């Protein structure tokens, strides 16, 4: 099985599970399909020799964020599907908007010229943790530190928002 076949199978599985995320009416099924989508995207990363990002994608996205979603869903007891249907006019508008976005983006990208000058320098080592860590802690050390501030503010914001108040305003 050559790489092109692997790509087509992976691409079809990725798009199929992403479609099931928005088409399934049951929220828990939707979350499980999204986890499947993240696994498929991780497989795409491995296909592109980005091993570290693939593992981080599984741990952070499929492991942490999606479990947080599932936890909130079960805590709020929303597992039954009582979501009101969107009006047909809204769905038609969404199909037209999404379809035109897809057509415009694909048409713009198809004719774009991507220079292929650097391809020969690609090695299978560049996605490993040693390379990424070296770059992260030298060139990108300032954004790295700022992201810790972002996390602190996110934690404080989440605690302040979700804290139960003395009186609930209806």
């Amino acid at each position: 099985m050559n790489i092109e076949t692997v790509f087509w199978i992976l691409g079809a599985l990725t798009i199929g599970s992403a479609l099931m995320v928005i088409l399934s009416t049951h929220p828990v099924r939707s979350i499980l399909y999204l986890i499947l989508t993240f696994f498929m995207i991780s497989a795409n990363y491995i296909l592109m020799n980005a091993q570290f990002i693939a593992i981080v994608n599984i741990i952070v996205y499929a492991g942490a964020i999606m479990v947080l979603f599932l936890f909130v869903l079960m805590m709020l007891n929303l597992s039954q599907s009582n979501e009101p249907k969107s009006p047909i006019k809204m769905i038609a508008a969404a199909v037209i908007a999404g379809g035109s976005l897809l057509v415009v983006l694909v048409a713009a990208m198809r004719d774009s010229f991507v220079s292929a000058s650097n391809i020969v320098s690609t090695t299978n080592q560049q996605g490993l943790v040693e390379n990424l860590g070296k770059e992260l802690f030298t060139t990108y050390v300032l954004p790295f530190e700022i992201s810790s501030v972002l996390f602190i503010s996110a934690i404080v914001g989440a605690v302040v928002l979700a804290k139960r108040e003395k009186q609930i305003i209806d």
Partner: protein
Amino acid sequence: MMVLASVFDTISIQHYLVLSTILFVIGVFGVLTRKNAIILLMCIELMLSSVNLLLVAFSTYFGDVSGQLFVFFIMVVAAAEATVGLSILVLLYRNTRSVDVGLFNKLKG
């Protein structure tokens, strides 16, 4: 060390451009049609993930590590966004007993 064949020897970068565009459009479609706030947040995660896929594709294509580090930072932002978004959602549920995003119309006052 095993030498892996580069994926871009056999398939072009345009394949990944189209794949991640399709994933992004699926996310946009979900945001526009679904009413459940949890699924809305999930569609936003899907859109972020499609951008990640494109960044990794170009990073591998040009042999430049920077793209993969941007993916790293996008994951950081996505985690923070999911945390704050879910706590807003819990707050909405506590006040209205529902997670229908249409209920945010009440904010108009």
